[in-house]
């Protein structure tokens, strides 16, 4: 357990646009990669309006379920899969990553994308998971999904579309995304 009190978070504010985004941040693989997929969605506020000043981070395993531990996310070489992506939403609250489908790995746990949300008006970052589509049995067997009522569980599962998956993020209200804490304050 932790001994030191953590430094508190603060909102990312409105002016991160020239500091945090980087070239190619949204392309974990080039769009020309034979197995490239799109993971995209829209961030909504409690009135159902898109949030135009959010920034999203993606962190995921490779196709074999291995956790990448290689540098180069900010300076991609086009060949190395680093597992990390970052992109601001556009004026319609929409974000889009080009990436690979994360594998289950040897443990066989239900694969998910780890997703972090930052926005003006959001006082501390929110952590969540975007699971690949899975059947009820697999969902019930997953420690997190199995602990959620069905209607909330669905907020954590991506929806297939033409080029990959959709993962909308609802900060508040109907269909509010399940956001996570991990027990270390």
């Amino acid at each position, binding site marked *: 357990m932790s001994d030191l009190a953590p430094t*508190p978070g603060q*909102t990312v504010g409105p002016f991160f646009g020239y500091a945090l985004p980087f070239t190619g941040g949204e392309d974990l693989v080039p769009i020309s990669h034979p197995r490239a997929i799109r993971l995209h969605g829209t961030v909504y506020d*409690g009135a159902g309006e898109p949030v135009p000043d959010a920034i999203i981070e993606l*962190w995921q395993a490779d196709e074999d379920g291995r956790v990448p531990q290689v540098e180069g996310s900010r300076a991609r070489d086009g060949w190395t899969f*680093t597992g990390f992506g970052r992109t601001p939403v556009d004026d319609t609250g929409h974000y889009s990553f080009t990436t690979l489908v994360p594998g289950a790995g040897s443990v066989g746990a239900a694969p998910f994308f780890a997703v972090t949300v930052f926005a003006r008006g959001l006082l501390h970052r929110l952590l969540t998971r975007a699971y690949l589509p899975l059947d009820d049995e697999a969902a019930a067997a997953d420690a997190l999904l199995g602990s959620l009522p069905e209607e909330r569980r669905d907020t954590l599962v991506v929806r297939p579309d033409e080029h990959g998956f959709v993962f909308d993020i609802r900060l508040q209200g109907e269909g509010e995304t399940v956001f996570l804490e*991990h027990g270390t304050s």
Partner: protein
Amino acid sequence: MTHSAPPPGPDSASTSQADVDAEMAAITAAYDASATVASDPETQPRLNYPPYRSSLLRHPTKDLHHADPEGIELRAPVFGHRDVGRLESDLTIQDGGEPIGERMVVTGRVLDGDGRPVRHQLVEVWQANSAGRYIHKRDQHPAPIDPHFTGVGRTLTDDEGRYTFTTIKPGPYPWKNHLNAWRPAHIHFSLFGTDFTQRLVTQMYFPGDPLFALDPIYQSIVDPAARARLVATYDHSVTQHEWATGYSWDIVLTGSHRTPFEDVEEEIA
């Protein structure tokens, strides 16, 4: 030619500072009277903090759901000198000339909740210039842009988890939360730990700022000891002779879920 303050625009909120102060005082009083204030003080900002108007529609209404971290969440992205240029930690040498303002060094260590240094990890900063203006198209504050200051820096922590930036002390700036709202001077920090769950974006402030009591973003951390953790210390041992003033600020991330055994394993591998 004389300059004067522009009249409040159509998007300027009309609530007074006194009204916002009263809202903040009521939240503080309720917190101080709560049963858990001594035994289990709050450590993070309230996500729902109505005096910060933009939080109203952007905070989850349901409690954060507990999840034991798994797989990818137990590791963090890796960054190296391919990702971060060695000169990017000096914000005063970026644009072909010297920026205006008080040159300062800010340094500190990034630690996990057990006091272990977070080594070789990315630290990103961004800030307003000495006049309180960001180089951002959405910043409408009529203060001068400094052509020699972008206000963006990056570095990697060293073997002891230490980061060091050379920069210019940022100015306070107005914002539209309420009438005559001003942010205390601050530097935005973005940090990674050894686990992705430790991800942190925050703001570093300067000691004794008279705007602290008036600022809903700072006050959204309702516990006074917790919010004091965002305030750097003036440190004369960091100040450099005839060159720059110095500030120290250590950053503690939440606890790592990795056991010492896993770290040993990694070092052997």
